[in-house]
């Protein structure tokens, strides 16, 4: 089963970090085949940020996303560029603090930035909250693998806060499903 996930938002929201952590979790700890790609164009330096992760049980030949099953959208510009193209059977996670549009497909509101500020005191945890939500909403990765990848990717001293961030994301989705 090939599962394509599109992450997009603003530079500084940790979009690419989130994609790399998910890829790392699936590749190294869940023993999946994974390809992660990201936008390197001028837009990546001027605000917009985009990345994609493909996770599969089989070897991945074509390395680019074609029709993502899952979208993580953290800015309105990202919605306009990627989110509006979501297929009707896709799943979208949006941060309602940044995204006003809503798609035709199933959409979960994950106020990652607001919860990061309110519960953890820093906006930087928003991307890990999103990862916790993504895990719970899709089952594309298991908790242990994701936690390991988060912990070996984040700065020393932030481990507990990042574990909390994962749990916050998971709870937000549990309440909605």
């Amino acid at each position, binding site marked *: 089963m090939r599962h394509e996930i599109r992450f997009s938002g603003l530079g500084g929201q940790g979009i690419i970090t989130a994609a790399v952590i998910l890829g790392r979790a699936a590749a190294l700890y869940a023993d999946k085949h994974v390809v992660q790609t990201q936008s390197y*164009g001028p837009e990546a330096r001027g605000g917009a940020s985009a990345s994609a992760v493909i996770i599969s049980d089989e070897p991945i030949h074509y390395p680019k996303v074609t029709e993502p099953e899952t979208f993580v959208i953290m800015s309105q510009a990202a919605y306009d560029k990627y989110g509006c193209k979501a297929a009707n059977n896709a799943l979208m996670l949006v941060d309602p603090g940044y995204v006003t549009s809503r798609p035709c497909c199933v959409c979960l509101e994950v106020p990652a930035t607001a919860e990061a500020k309110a519960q953890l005191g820093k906006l930087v945890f928003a991307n890990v909250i999103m990862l916790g939500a993504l895990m719970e909403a899709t089952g594309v990765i298991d908790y242990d693998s994701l936690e390991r990848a988060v912990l070996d990717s984040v700065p020393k001293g932030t481990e507990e806060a990042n574990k909390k961030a994962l749990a916050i994301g998971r709870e937000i989705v549990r309440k909605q499903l």
Partner: protein
Amino acid sequence: MGGRKTLRTKESGDRILTGKTEFYNGNTACAEGALAAGCRFFAGYPITPSTEIAERMAARLPKVGGTFVQMEDELASMAAIVGGSWAGARSMTATSGPGFSLMMENIGYAAITETPCVVVNVQRGGPSTGQPTMAAQGDMMQARYGSHGDYSIIALSPSSVQEMFDLTVKAFNLADRFRTPVFLMADETIGHMREKILLRENVEIIPRRELKEGELPCEPDENGIPGFGTFGNGHNIHITGLTHNEKGYPATDSAELHEAMVRRQVDKIEKHRLELTDVDIVNPEAEIVFISYGAPTRTVRQLLADEPGKYGHLNLRIVWPFPDHCLEQFTNAKAFIVPEMNLGQIAKEVRQYTNVKIITAPKLGGALHTVEELKKAAAAAETATRPVTEVRL
């Protein structure tokens, strides 16, 4: 750097990362492959989309007793790795199209002085500064013929992150074995994407053959390859970009000597085409056969997985010298389709060796060929009547 000691790979402690599985991008994998192969000298000028190679080497080389130099430009980068190589270190630089162009003069110098070195070109859209962040394969002919005069080189083309590691190791071995510049012709897609990679332990190292007592510095062995007189090992040697005799001294007015030197330097590679063949051959009985290298290989493999048995595939991991003998293995071939991220550079090479009709499937602009586009090329192959037909994707 410490002379030949730098060719050893065993390091104390945990400084060498081999044996681990990692989730790296292609450029990082390339740098780690170089370190595993014993590369201990890197001189370069960072350029998108190859920059992560220089960054990784800058961070890692000092930890393994190597040297990283950020040079003033690519002319100097290429000159520095020639020097590093003669000092005994496995030496490398990494660049992209604009820097590759600047390296051409000294690549010729490396060719005529038979200096083992590895040049990585993570290709982007050209000509000139073109599309810095987009993938292309437009430098394949430049890799073969970019410097002036007649010479031959070896060029490899990776299509996965693992191959960025493995083919970098291979590039160093071939550079030392054949005493030639070896090019790793990657592209932005493979350089920047992340995949799982095994940092192989105890990679095979085939060191260059040191010059023997009594042997002349440019005297070829039975393979046409002279021994290497590493600086500091007591050899009296002269290295020059001028046409030179077996002693290594300039001898520019003899037509016979010049022809013999050029032919030997070309033949040492071209006559080893069988040894220098690294390909995948899939469904050799097929009538429609794709020939690809680098990123487009990924799309061809997707198509073959989607429609098993329908198409043949020749994937080239070594593009130069071109493995023309592999074309004969596709005995039923009615068309060779060559999808490239350029206007058909290797397709022209295929044309030299076959009367089978050729479909070129060029794709410019940075996006990888899609499976649908390859199907379109395959459909065109059925109806094409001319010897070479370009499909506009």
